[in-house]
């Protein structure tokens, strides 16, 4: 077995944006389907099931640090959970003499994270916080920056930061991902149903339309692969039914919640390893990776159970109320009524996105310790063989 095959068995990420260079020659469509997932779905960097069947070309097992919690309805308030998590991480940082680095995109989720610390840490201790942001963050929430960050908190520009083992030894890194899943998952893929007021109707009723919407060639003519929609919708649906959640997660919006909650969660929690590094050849120790997972703000059993329990509330009939709970939490601290009233979800580029996208060479996959492996001929060959053997 070659070294790449051994590495791949435990890879945390085989980034979809690098797959196009593989150019599979397979006669079966599944290799091409897999490559198309990056274009036809939103914000996909890798996909892996936390529970149930979902075959991938690599079939890499899930990381226990990001395992799916027990499906349980809880009554905790979001406010209590946010406050408790900030206090927990603050005490941990104090105890271990670490700083808290908050990746603040200016969006709703990361503003909620930063708010939770500002609310629960006394002014005298504010120097424990470092805000990682850029001018886009400032523009997304100018008033918040002006009142709570400017001349108040230490800031580092995204592009200055290099997330290394040493950085994680001295900082607890927190960010807003994957709160988008918990507070109402990405809406663009079911916008068609939102526009028609059908997003809370049963997915069983709309499966054909859901397949068709992932199929339509004019959305992305270059990536169009006939049959993708049917294949992908069936794949996710089969998983949802297999794990026994089809009677609880019943609407079109729930279906897309499941898509995020089960398949995107693990990689989304770890996005800084893709977008906050300047040198991909660095390794991270097992201990620091475990700590990172533990400290990922929303990667707790309670937050996930809150998201699961409140799914019907988080995705309302009237989409203007989207993320209302989390905006209310921010508003109670900032008293910014305009924010509560008018702020809506907008996508943010993660970290050093431009820097990474424009880098001359990118890793084609990562080892279990997040060391990036560049696209040498053997790594490409190995991935290509696995991809060509893929039968969906």
């Amino acid at each position, binding site marked *: 077995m070659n070294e790449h095959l051994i590495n791949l068995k435990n890879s945390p990420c085989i980034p979809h944006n690098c797959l196009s*260079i593989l150019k599979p020659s397979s006669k079966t469509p599944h290799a091409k389907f897999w490559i198309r997932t990056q274009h036809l779905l939103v914000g996909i960097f890798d996909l892996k099931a936390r529970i149930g069947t979902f075959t991938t070309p690599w079939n890499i097992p899930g990381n226990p640090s990001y395992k799916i919690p027990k499906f349980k309805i809880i009554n905790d308030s979001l406010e209590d959970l946010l406050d408790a998590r900030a206090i927990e991480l603050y005490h941990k940082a104090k105890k271990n003499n670490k700083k808290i680095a908050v990746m603040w995109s200016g969006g709703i989720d990361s503003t909620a994270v930063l708010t939770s610390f500002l609310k629960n840490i006394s002014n005298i201790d504010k120097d424990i916080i470092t805000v990682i*942001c*850029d*001018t886009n963050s*400032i*523009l997304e929430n*100018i008033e918040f*920056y*002006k009142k709570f960050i*400017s*001349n108040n908190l230490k*800031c580092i*520009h995204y*592009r*200055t930061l290099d997330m290394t083992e040493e950085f994680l030894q001295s900082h607890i890194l927190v960010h807003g991902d994957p709160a988008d899943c918990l507070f109402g998952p990405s809406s663009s893929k079911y916008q068609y149903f939102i526009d028609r007021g059908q997003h809370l109707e049963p997915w069983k009723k709309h499966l054909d339309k859901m397949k068709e919407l992932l199929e339509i060639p004019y959305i992305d003519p270059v990536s169009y692969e006939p049959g993708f929609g049917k294949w992908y919708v069936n794949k996710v649906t089969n998983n949802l039914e297999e794990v026994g959640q089809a009677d609880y997660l019943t609407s079109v919006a729930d279906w897309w919640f499941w898509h995020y909650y089960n398949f995107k969660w693990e990689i989304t929690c770890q996005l800084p390893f893709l977008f906050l590094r300047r040198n991909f050849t660095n390794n991270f120790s097992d201990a620091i990776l475990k700590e990172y997972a533990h400290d990922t703000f929303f990667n707790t059993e309670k937050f996930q159970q809150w998201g699961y329990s409140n799914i019907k509330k988080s995705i309302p009939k009237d989409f203007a109320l989207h993320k209302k709970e989390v905006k209310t939490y921010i508003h109670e601290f900032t008293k910014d009524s305009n924010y509560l009233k008018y702020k809506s979800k907008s996508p943010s580029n993660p970290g050093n996105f*431009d*820097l990474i996208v*424009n*880098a*001359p*060479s990118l890793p084609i996959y990562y080892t279990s310790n997040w060391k990036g492996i*560049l*696209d*040498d001929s053997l790594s490409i060959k190995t991935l290509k063989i696995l991809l060509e053997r893929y039968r969906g």
Partner: protein
Amino acid sequence: MIKIKESPYYFSIHSNDLLDKEKYNFFGMLSGKQNRFYILHRNHSLLKILQILLSKNFYTFSIVSFKHFIFDTHKEIDNHDCCEWGGTPNMTHTLELEANTSILESKLINNNFNSFTLSEFELQEKMFFIMDILTKIDNLFKKIRDYEIDIKKPTHDGYNELQKYLEIICPNDKNISDFIEKERQQTQMKSLILDTYWDRLFLFFYNVDLRNNSTSYLSESLKTYIKTPEFELEGFKRLYQDPHNAYTELCNILGIV
């Protein structure tokens, strides 16, 4: 007799699209030892690279600016006949890296030399080969840079306004100007990465033995080097494929299929 004009790397310094005032603004690479020109070119910066490469291989050449040089004796001098010409002795006695053409009566003279020997011709052809590659790649990179500057101009201008107004909203802020400077640099990144590729090409020519290798060997070695992981050709392809199609152009220049 071997003539440089028959070399595939030959080029003329005269073209129809030159403005009159630019016509005589060019430079010559003059052998100090022989007092004869080996190559003429309009880009001083590229000639300087050539001069460094030649010096490393123990060839001494001086750059002569024709703009400040009296060459009325042969106003139409070009690359095909420059090797028959040199400078007056008072100039060549004091040859430096950049020839001093302000010395009294420094001017172009015909030396009535014999034709180049085979080894002299080979050296001259290597110089043409290097300048041909460098000129074409320099033009390609300039095209990419100009495009990048053009498309990034609104972003660049926007940063000025952004800084001005954000600093009014947040007086005494210590981050905004620093952030904007960093992001401004980021907008120039594609242009800056071109410098890295240029440096790699320069180092290839610097490290190769010009004296003891033929032009065809240099050409093949360059093609091989471009395909090595160190050159990062795939990265170049990814960065500059659209809309410049620079990757294909680069491959054409280097003769890579």
